[in-house]
């Protein structure tokens, strides 16, 4: 597989997945609209945002403000590159893919933090700091549950982890894994009910000062991040491209879409958590559970 091939594959997944997520979110959380309008909704919204002028504030850190959406999108793409989509690809395999993915997802914190800091406005800044509190509390359990899937596979390569699930998905072998992964993934993508940095109580938080193309890029980058996280969830817990009859890439698409829709469902129906409760939840509930997951799965793998 060539670099260009990987690039096209990732771009198709991210754009397609972002569209699916936007439509699902619209159908679940939208107000009084019919099903048909939901399918054109993302395109119309994007068109309007592209037309809208990009506003600025009195004294922003403009470089950081411009960098943040590009960085977020770049990180989502890098995360996606580490995941095989259509089938085993010996050439495109990254031996330490899991670490690459983990690093990319931690740097998301940088993108969000500088996006909140850049406009020099109180409400976005609080949003950025809230996200820092969130990621510092769930970063460890997030990495741990992903890492646990590497134990039976004996490799940090995502391709090998997928291959090692040919007899049984890790969803069943490591029952704690996927739930913790989805909770922490939603938090890393600041998706509801963990959308603290973008909360209504901050009038939009980190995006309160963003308009037009900047907002459009940020929204798209966030959706792409959700897709990457779902892709990884599908790869390491649901057997990725493995599946009968259908071609491998279609299995990846189906499994990713299922996870995306699951996340979209919880996003608009659950109440947003308080930041202190979340910090407590991350350290006192999720981290011990993730450690239990590691050692129980390790015991089983022996």
């Amino acid at each position, binding site marked *: 597989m060539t670099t260009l091939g990987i690039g096209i594959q990732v771009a198709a997944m991210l754009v397609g997945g972002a569209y699916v997520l936007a439509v699902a979110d619209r159908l679940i959380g939208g107000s009084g609209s019919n099903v048909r309008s939901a399918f054109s909704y993302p395109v*119309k919204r994007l068109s309007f945002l592209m037309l809208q002028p990009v506003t600025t504030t009195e004294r922003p850190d403009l470089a950081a403000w411009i960098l943040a959406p590009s960085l977020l999108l770049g990180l989502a793409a890098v995360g996606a590159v580490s995941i095989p989509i259509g089938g085993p690809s010996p050439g495109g395999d990254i031996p330490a893919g899991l670490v690459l993915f983990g690093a990319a997802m931690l740097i998301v914190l940088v993108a969000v933090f500088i996006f909140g800091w850049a406009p020099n406005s*109180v409400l976005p800044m609080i949003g950025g700091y809230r996200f820092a509190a969130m990621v510092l509390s769930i970063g460890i359990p997030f990495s741990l549950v992903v890492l646990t899937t590497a134990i039976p596979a004996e490799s940090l390569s995502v391709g090998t982890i997928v291959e090692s699930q040919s007899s049984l998905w890790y969803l069943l072998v490591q029952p704690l894994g996927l739930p913790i992964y989805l909770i922490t993934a939603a938090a890393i993508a600041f998706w509801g009910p963990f959308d603290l940095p973008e*909360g209504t*109580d901050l009038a939009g938080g980190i995006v309160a000062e963003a308009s037009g193309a900047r907002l459009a890029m940020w929204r798209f980058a966030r959706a792409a991040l959700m897709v990457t996280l779902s892709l990884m969830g599908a790869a390491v817990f649901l057997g990725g491209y493995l599946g009968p009859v259908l071609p491998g890439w279609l299995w990846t698409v189906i499994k990713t879409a299922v996870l995306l829709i699951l996340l979209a469902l919880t996003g608009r129906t659950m109440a*947003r958590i308080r930041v202190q409760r979340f910090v407590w939840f991350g350290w006192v509930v999720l981290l011990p559970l993730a450690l239990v997951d590691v050692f129980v799965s390790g015991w089983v793998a022996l």
Partner: protein
Amino acid sequence: MGLKARLVHLARTGEVPVFAVVGGGYRSAMHQLRHADGIRIVTSPRHASVLLIAGTFTEAATETVNRVHDQMAGPRVTVGWGHREPMLAPTRANPAGDTSEIAAVIRRQFHDVVTGAIQPEPPLLPDVDPVEWRGVGPYGHGGTGMTGGTPYGRPLALRAPDRDGLELDQVPVTIGPWFAGFPPGLALRVSLQGDVAQAVEVVTTSVVSSGPPGVFTRALHEPTPIRDLEMARARHHLEWMADTLLIAGADRLSLRADRLAETIQPGDVEHVTRLTAAARRSLLRLMTLRGVGVLSADIDMVGLGPVARAAGFSDDRRTPEPAYRDIGFQPVTHDVGDAWARFAQRAAEAAQAVDLAARAGSHRAFGSGEVEAPDGHHQAGETGPADRLTSMLDAVLPGMEWGDLVTTVQSLDIDMESVFFGRPPT
């Protein structure tokens, strides 16, 4: 067709991002507009293209409304909705009709401004710096030394002590009166140290003016059918629940509460209890409200209505009213007195109100110059409970994290119309 023309073609029929400034008499109507077709109420003017000025205001609102107008990203259009003198900003259209009419007007205006049929509005405020600063510092940035001067037009925040022992910067910042997390018209000057409010001051200028009197205002002076009173109470509480759920991010449930407020009929107790159960399932209690905004026991709660009853005070003006006694009214109470207790209290009162309305028959109540409104005990010619709740804020809110502060303010159900004009909401 060029790229821009293509984008215009797609965008003109899209959903309209509306930033709403809500004045007297239109709080309830806004709840219906929230789920009108093709309208999206946004929380920041930076996302909006249409400024909706709904209801009536005082002159004092002009500055803030104009500022919000200028902060809109555009292409800007201002639409009034039952907006009367004093006019805060030039409006393109100003219908006074129902939700579907205003929604159609907003969509039309948006369509026209996106396609270029009408010119977008220019900014309203004069283009002058808040203070002279250009060219003052050595780099033209307006400051000297480490923290001196007004670089780029504003001073830097100063240090202040903190209970944590770290004397770091404290930024006084005024939030409101058109902030989505607060009731419309409420502005707070909060001294923020990090994300914690160290001091809170209520900005006392009245910006919303009074809308038409509601059923509880009439009940002050003449006996009113209990059925009307209780249905108005149920609607008020349901709309408040919708607001709370919206701020808590449970959009879908908020929508459901709004719809229920619109369609509820006497006797629909089941609907209200199901909504409450759904709110509980959304982990509203566990994640957001529990333990937040507990009112200390030394606060005089008499007459504060649901706020007092949520803290265990069985204090209700309806209890001695003969008509209410006849239909078997008993006040409900909760204990703890945190934000969740107030949510559960209002949900229970909404259910009770619907039940009472079904059993009220032709009973009438009040007319004695006193009334138990949804926010508490009102007396003719006196300031109501909302005024007392507002003056409590500077004592209750300090020390809270910002999100908890917003949750607490919302849980107290302060209606600024009631604060400034001393009469019951709804």
